[in-house]
């Protein structure tokens, strides 16, 4: 079991209020991602759940038991750190065994669990090595191994992939997702990378300045962002946000249209926005155009088919899909 409930939790460091009162429930078995720009309080929130920081007020309960005053070691949670935080003086095997040793588990059971974890994470050949002799990806797997042997009620991941190179990151992302499928244990994952959030999460919690901007499944957030912040944060490339006359036509302060919901045409079409092609980014499968001089915003980003080709300075027409237009009021809140 691993249901985690935050009730009116606040955190201040001195006079700085990092997290204003916040409520959140993470269901048992859920893969929950905290996402937001740096300094939004997502790591602090995770550390509060871990018990590495004390809440200023409010309560945290794990499986309906008040855990607010329980020390981190006793909360039954395991954590994977950004820096891996392996014990450099111990072999891989001893690293993985450490939590079991601390729990004074009997030797045979320790061996069994270590073996199982090593097998699951492809670490069997490296058990006698020191962390210093491993690559970044292997180190991260050791850190995960150290977390899974305890069979915790929930896993906490603090930006675990940000020290890895891009290719490895994609691989580890899949491994963690598969691990979740297999273990069905609650996972809370902190990242600033919205791609990680979208691809891994059952539930995304978007944070800004300690405040929850929106909670929902990846597709809910993609299709119905509650405000302009979430709209701009979720999705890549970012949603185009347009203010002024064009927005007023739709009785909104701001309208948003995702780059993939705009088609490009060389000929004038009714209702299309004219513009001039700036930089094009060719990804092979897709091409991303940065279009200027539309009179709507500085740049309008458009995602097209990889076959489409325009050159810098070409005059083009943008056709937005009106059925997927997002409308926001003057406070940036979604209208209908």
């Amino acid at each position: 079991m691993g249901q985690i409930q935050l009730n009116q939790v606040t955190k201040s460091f001195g006079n700085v209020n990092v997290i204003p009162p916040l409520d959140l429930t993470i269901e048992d078995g859920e893969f929950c991602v905290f996402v937001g720009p740096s300094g939004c309080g997502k790591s602090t929130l995770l550390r509060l759940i871990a018990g590495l920081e004390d809440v200023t007020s409010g309560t945290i309960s794990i499986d309906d038991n008040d855990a607010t005053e329980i020390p981190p070691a006793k909360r039954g949670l395991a954590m994977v750190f950004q820096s891996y935080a392996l014990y450099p003086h111990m072999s891989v095997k001893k690293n993985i065994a450490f939590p079991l040793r601390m729990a004074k588990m009997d030797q045979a059971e320790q061996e069994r669990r270590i073996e199982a974890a090593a097998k699951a994470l492809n670490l069997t050949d490296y058990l006698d090595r020191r962390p210093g002799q491993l690559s970044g990806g292997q180190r991260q797997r050791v850190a995960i191994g150290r977390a899974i042997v305890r069979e915790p009620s929930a896993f906490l991941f603090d930006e675990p992939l940000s020290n890895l190179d891009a290719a490895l990151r994609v691989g580890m992302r899949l491994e963690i997702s598969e691990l979740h499928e297999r273990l069905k244990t609650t996972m809370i994952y902190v990242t600033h990378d919205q791609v990680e959030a979208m691809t891994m999460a059952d539930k995304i919690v978007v944070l800004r300045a300690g405040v929850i901007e929106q909670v929902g499944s990846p597709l809910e957030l993609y299709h119905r962002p509650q405000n302009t912040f979430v709209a701009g944060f979720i999705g890549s490339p970012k949603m185009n946000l347009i203010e002024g006359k064009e927005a007023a036509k739709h009785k909104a302060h701001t309208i948003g249209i995702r780059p993939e919901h705009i088609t490009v045409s060389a000929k004038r079409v009714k209702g299309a926005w004219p513009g001039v092609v700036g930089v094009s980014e060719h990804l092979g499968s897709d091409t991303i155009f940065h279009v200027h001089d539309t009179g709507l915003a500085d740049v309008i980003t458009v995602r097209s088919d990889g076959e489409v080709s325009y050159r810098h300075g070409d005059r083009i027409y943008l056709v937005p899909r009106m059925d997927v237009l997002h409308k926001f009021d003057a406070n940036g809140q979604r209208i209908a």
Partner: protein
Amino acid sequence: MAREITQKRKIVNTLVAWTIGFLIFFPILWTVLTSFKTEAQAISDPPVFLFFDWTLENYAIVQERSDYARFLWNSVIIAVGSTVLGTIISVPAAWSMAFVPSKKTKDILLWMLSTKMLPAVGVLYPIYLIFIELGLLDTKVGLVAVMTLINLPIIVWMLYTYFREIPGEILEAARMDGATLRDEIIHVLTPMAIPGIASTVLLNIILAWNEAFWTLNLTAAKAAPLTAFIASYSSPEGLFYAKLSAASTMAIAPILILGWFSQKQLVRGLTFGAVK
């Protein structure tokens, strides 16, 4: 552009370095040489450098006159005892200052260091009286206690700087893994800080071994370490340079040997964190 060092420049630099090194080492060399001379040659003018009648006579006389082994044993007990005790006290102290600092931690560290700025003789009288009261005068226990207290600020400071180099996340990981504070210090912090702890211990043994003010003032016969052994050869009846040198050589030999074998460790420890 890489800095160019010409061959000539290299030779000059090497020569200068060796000369300075030799000058620093010379007094010790001279002491060792003198210990093998006769008393007459030891004070001859002009001094003889290498061409004299080498003799072991001084060592024989020194050993005959005073029991070297007893002084040596006292030195070992005082130096090692105070270091071990000091380290046991300092590890938790440095842990709390490095990992759970309060607003006053910096002040406490400076205040601790400030005690080293007080001239020792300023507290000789009170400490002497306390020693008389407690019956600690001329006892090894008393000297171990005084040495521990004297070197405690240095041990805490050194350990504090080493501990600061250890990433806090690793200790947090240990906490998440179910380690108690005791487990955390014994199984994670201490093994990781071994190079730093080792150099702290070595330096402290050397400092305690060489300390002369308190060992001379608070001992008479029973607990007297090697510093007192040397001092006993600088007597009012006259200066016996050769015998004094022999006694000095015997006193510094153990610590020189220790220093020689541990120099790698010492250098590594003292530059710990400076180079990664």
